[in-house]
């Protein structure tokens, strides 16, 4: 079975307080030099059958209507063999 990964990230202009909280904790833990952190979501889809153009189109549709809220989030779809 092929794996398709959908990454969902808040749009750059949307405030990400979770990412900020992580970023603020880094120096406290001794990890310096990180100017910004943004937190996203990763979906790993195990796809039955071939990941052809039609299957990818359906996954794209799934990401757009359900996995991501495109009012606030961007997403990318990539195939991992």
């Amino acid at each position: 079975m092929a794996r398709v990964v959908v990454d969902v990230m808040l749009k750059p202009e949307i405030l990400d307080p979770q990412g900020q909280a992580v970023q603020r904790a880094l120096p406290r833990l001794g990890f310096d030099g990180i100017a910004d952190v943004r937190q996203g979501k990763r979906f790993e889809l195990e796809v039955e059958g071939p990941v052809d153009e039609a299957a990818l189109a359906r996954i794209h549709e799934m990401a757009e209507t359900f996995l991501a809220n495109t009012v606030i989030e961007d997403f990318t779809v990539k195939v991992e063999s």
Partner: protein
Amino acid sequence: MTARIGVVTFPGTLDDQDALRAARLAGAEPVSLWHRDKDLKQVDAVVLAGGFSYGDYLRAGAISRFSPVMETIIEQAKAGMPVLGICNGFQILTEAHLLPGAMLRNNHLHFICRDQKLRVENADTAWTVDYGQGQEIQVPLKNMDGRYVADERVLDELEAEGRVAFRYLDMNPNGSLRDIAGITNAAGNVVGLMPHPEHAVEPLIGTGRTDGLGFFTSILKKLVNA
């Protein structure tokens, strides 16, 4: 005939009983609706109550939005049926694109629970006609994902068309853009807000204020005059 107000229960809904009670206290016939049923049991209006439907997994309201009952509600709302979304219900309405924008995690990342002052900015919607324009009310607020966001163009449009229905007063509890606590669609039949009017309908409960009852008497007035 008494108006029938339906209240939907999703897995994880918490405030359905309070909403049903508020509808009854206002003089309506409360009707329980189940998320798996497409049938709305001939209700005249629908309340999507607060809670954590589907545990807020994926995004608050994102999974509920695709439930069978929502298929019918979306269709009926577009045809003019009054729908009120409170808290999680508001999140469901934005996910369903019945209202613009989106709800995000509070900017301070804490769950918040307080008595919140609001200004009624639009007393002309199906759910607010019993309030005065500019009236200040106080109702409980409790949420984790209450930060309303939309792009500048949408925000300007909402302001210009008087569709910001409620604004937070004294303090902004969650970082909502332009202090927005609730909005309405262009037709005024669909309203969403984060605070909880259904928890402020009886003098013996909470802060003793009944400021929230106006939502439910408004809809009765609207339905009777329709």
